[in-house]
């Protein structure tokens, strides 16, 4: 009896980690291989990070020696309306770069995999997948200029011309609020969509078709199969996409710089662009470093939360809860 129980346990719960052959003689020798990585980490990440944090306590114009001013920059940031506007806009960027692309990406990937792939063959599915991914590889400077032409004010803009065909008057898309932010968000959805589509389509390959067949036999419709089987199996990929896109949304800079420069009237300001302005145009390096440090802290906190939630869900899954 006890033998049977042990066998069942082995088949239901595989080992959590692949077993690595252990060598006698300790692990001291392995550290040598990690050394180059640590040196790079030190030079590229840790030293600049520490220097950046130090600068938050200084007033510095970028040359000569920084002047130590204590917590002045940190006190200033609390009452800085532009700073809070920039972080509010980060929430909109998260909607445009994480929420919408992830949901749309799931739907598009499932449709391409399930419907298009089956009815029209894998090549059509691959072609469409590549099409959605194209904005990801297009330099944002190029895309930004083209988008600027499309939404330019007056009747010269492509969008205004098209609206004109239906008798809709020309509108200043980038010069007014909230349209400037909406245009920026639409652009970001367009740019981001391809990434989750590609990741989710790759993840869908892992799903055992027999599970779908079994569910179909049990009478499950497409949505039930999608929510119960697909979503459950590709959850790790959903976490990865959500985490990486959230970090990208918090750090977004290029599209804002190219398309709106934070305008009109600072309404599309985001933290990375605000830090850039303080660093390079106002030469308030200390204050720019403070904004950058806050951004780093937020990114780290968000990452930790994501990873913890993911680990917790995985643990529950392994435990069969």
């Amino acid at each position, binding site marked *: 009896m006890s033998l049977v129980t042990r066998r069942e346990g082995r088949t239901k719960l595989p080992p959590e980690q692949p077993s690595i052959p252990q060598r006698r003689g300790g692990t001291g020798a392995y550290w040598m291989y990690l050394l180059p990585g640590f040196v790079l980490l030190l030079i590229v990440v840790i030293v600049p990070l520490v220097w950046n944090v130090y600068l938050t306590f200084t007033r510095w114009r970028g040359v000569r020696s920084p002047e130590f001013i204590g917590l002045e920059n940190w006190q200033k940031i609390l009452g800085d309306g532009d700073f809070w506007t920039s972080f509010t806009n980060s929430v909109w960027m998260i909607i445009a770069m994480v929420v919408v692309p992830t949901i749309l990406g799931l739907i598009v990937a499932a449709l391409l995999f399930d419907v298009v792939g089956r009815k029209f063959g894998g090549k059509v599915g691959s072609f469409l997948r590549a099409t959605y991914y194209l904005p990801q590889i297009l330099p944002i400077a190029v895309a930004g200029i083209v988008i600027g032409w499309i939404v330019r004010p007056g009747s010269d803009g492509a969008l205004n011309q098209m609206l004109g065909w239906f008798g809709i008057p020309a509108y200043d898309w980038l010069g*007014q609020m909230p349209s400037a932010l909406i245009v920026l968000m639409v652009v970001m959805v367009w740019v981001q969509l391809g990434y989750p589509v590609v990741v989710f389509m790759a993840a869908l390959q892992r799903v055992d078709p027999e599970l779908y067949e079994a569910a179909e036999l049990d009478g499950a419709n497409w949505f039930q199969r999608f929510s119960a089987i697909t979503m459950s199996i590709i959850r790790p990929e959903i976490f990865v996409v959500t985490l990486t896109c959230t970090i990208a949304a918090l750090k977004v800079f290029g599209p804002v710089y190219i398309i709106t420069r934070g305008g009109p009237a600072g*309404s599309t300001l985001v933290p990375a662009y605000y830090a850039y302005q303080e660093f390079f145009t106002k030469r308030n390096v200390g204050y720019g470093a403070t904004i950058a440090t806050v951004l780093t802290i937020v990114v780290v906190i968000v990452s930790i939360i994501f990873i913890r939630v993911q680990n917790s869900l995985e643990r529950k899954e392994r435990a069969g809860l």
Partner: protein
Amino acid sequence: MARRIRSTTVAALAALTATGVALSGCTAGTDEGGDGQTLKLWHYEGADSAMGKAWAEAIDIFEKETGATVEFEEKSFEQIQKTASQVLDTDAAPDLMEFNKGNATAGFLASTGLIADISDAVEEYGWDDKLAPSLQTTAKYSEDGVMGGDTWFGVPNYGEFVGVYYNEDAFAEAGLQIPTTYDEFVDVLDAFVAKGVTPLAEAGAEYPLGQLWYQLALNAGDRGFVDQYQLYDGEVDWQGPEVTAATETIAEYVDKGYIASDVSSVKAEDAGVSFINGTSPIFVSGSWWFGRFVAEATGFDWTMTAFPGADLSLGSSGNLWVVPENAANKELAYEFIDITMRPEIQAIIGNNGGLPVAAEIDDITDEKSAELIETFNGVLEADGLSFYPDWPAPGFYDVLVQELQGLVTGVQDAETTNANLGEQYDEGTAEFR
């Protein structure tokens, strides 16, 4: 195998050492003050611009006369503006560099000791005799980097000013005269609006709107206001008559249709093009457009004057030649500057749509250019150059764009706009006062 690894390592180390020695040798050579045979020169004028053509000729003359070689690196304005302060602090600094004038730019470099005091060279070569007093203001800085000081940190070769471009054909068609007073200017704007034409080419996403705003403040102010604003000679009253008149008038221009309602997202290039293609008959902007309009605005007759009825105009010397403190060949740099001040080089600037500061008027053969130079000389004679609104504080350009966008989109009123501008101005200038 072990021996091979060891020998490869030794060879690699030897190569690295040799490279290191060679590199340190190069650096040492530079540190010792240069070879006196190579002038490392940076500027950001386009090859086809008036200055670009003049500098190219100056390089030829310099190489022939001195036997030295010019090592020219073409930079962009943004590149030098954003990174110069870091580069100038190193041995990679050039011997001579073009740099933007003003407190937040050349003044900043002067205050940090990154560019050299060239007062002795100015006196030795007599450049000060060739420059009108109002042009000297932007070349001389105090130890805090405020222009108009006693120490020469740069030399300008050309000037610039903001005036009004008029499409003469459009005026003739509408039965209007080119205005000579501000009231006539407003009457013309009203007349065009009545005919369904938006008269002013304008751009709220870049400098033109901020420059119009400052011109309107200058119309309501005097030299005392300019000195307060630009030279920190007293406090600027940000709710006072000059700034209030400027801000309220801009809002009024939008309300009355003198400026398009979608001005806030328009860039300078688009505004210029709307004048070139005849869409807008009036464009308030700088002399830097002049050469472009000569080449491209060929479908109609046009002219440029100083802002009607104004005693003060935006404008200054052009960008400056500055000599980095770490320059290896300062003497060569001075010789090059001297060549650029010669009449033949100045004439190239003048005949290509630029505004030379030391040209012989007889050398200006182009009629249109002569007309521009005459207008500029009129501004100089009236001591009318009043600099640019974004100069007093680092980053104030972005502040002006942002706040005026808020004004013209109706997000904020004139009083709030003035208050925001004042707050940012005071913060940006606090350490210079």
